[in-house]
């Protein structure tokens, strides 16, 4: 666990370790099964072409999980993720590398807010959002 996960040393502007993955068609089918999301745009090549895409597109929710991983992999078991917002800016085609990033927006002894985004290889932010991490030691707000 990084030393920076200690609430006392988390500072605004600090960058968290990014999370990257290049979703394959198999990954999308696996995610569809796990998330119970069988929208054809994510597995049916013909349907995707009819909708104007050259290939099937990555689930927006898969990008949301990459964003949450940036937070949970950094902060470990020091608390829990109490809030997560994801705004979907642009679809991503299967087989393209995506990287989720996070920076600390603000921090106090109770919770930390992290700005999050997913970037394509062209540098475009295709999803943006934020998360709120609540520290376990916070009196009265520890999850049960």
């Amino acid at each position, binding site marked *: 666990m990084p030393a920076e996960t200690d609430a006392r040393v988390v500072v605004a502007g600090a960058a968290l370790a990014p*999370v990257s*993955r290049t979703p394959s068609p198999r*990954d999308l089918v*696996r*995610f569809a*099964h*796990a*998330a*119970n*999301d*069988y*929208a054809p*745009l994510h597995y049916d090549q013909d349907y995707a072409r009819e*909708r*104007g895409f050259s290939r099937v597109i990555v689930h*927006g*929710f*898969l990008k*949301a*999980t*990459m964003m*949450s*991983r940036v*937070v*949970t*992999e950094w902060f*470990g*078991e020091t608390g*829990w*993720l*109490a*809030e*997560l*917002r*994801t*705004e*979907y800016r642009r*679809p991503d085609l299967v087989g393209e590398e995506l990287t989720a990033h996070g920076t600390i927006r603000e921090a106090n002894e109770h919770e930390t807010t992290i700005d999050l985004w997913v970037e394509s290889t062209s540098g475009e932010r295709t999803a943006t*959002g934020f*998360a709120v991490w609540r520290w376990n030691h916070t009196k009265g707000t520890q*999850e*049960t």
Partner: protein
Amino acid sequence: MDVHLVTDAVRRELRLGEVCARFRYAVTANDVERFALATGDRSGPWATPEDYVSGRLPAGAPAPPGYYLALDPYERGDLEVEEYLTRIPYRPTGGGNAYNHVRYARPIRVGDDITVEVSYTDAYEKDGRSGRLLFRVRQNVYLDARGAIVAESECCHIRSYDLSEEVADAR
């Protein structure tokens, strides 16, 4: 002529502000492990040593934060209150999610018996590059077996239409 996708009939059908459906889902070790594996999430308390679904995650283990999406009745295809979409007489040109926002009172856990109450809170339209955009905003309230709130989420879905092309069945 001014064309509107969101009519009084649509608003009535969505029962804006009212709970329009309830679904009950069990949270099993298999489900949570499958979600963690599919998302590549191997570092949290939801991770197991195996790289396959073993069903050995103990009761009470938290699910990854994104797991609420797997219990969204709309995305699962369990919610059938959008029949009105089939009566919109224009060609749909696309659609997708605009945003999701979840606030947890506590993590969802293996062994939870979750009831999801769905309500539509808003429906509106705007003109965009791909035609007229129809926005529907949904709220899900996730309750545990005791009726306590576990999480609340807001999701906005967009569907776009080409208003220059009328169709008999928009499905």
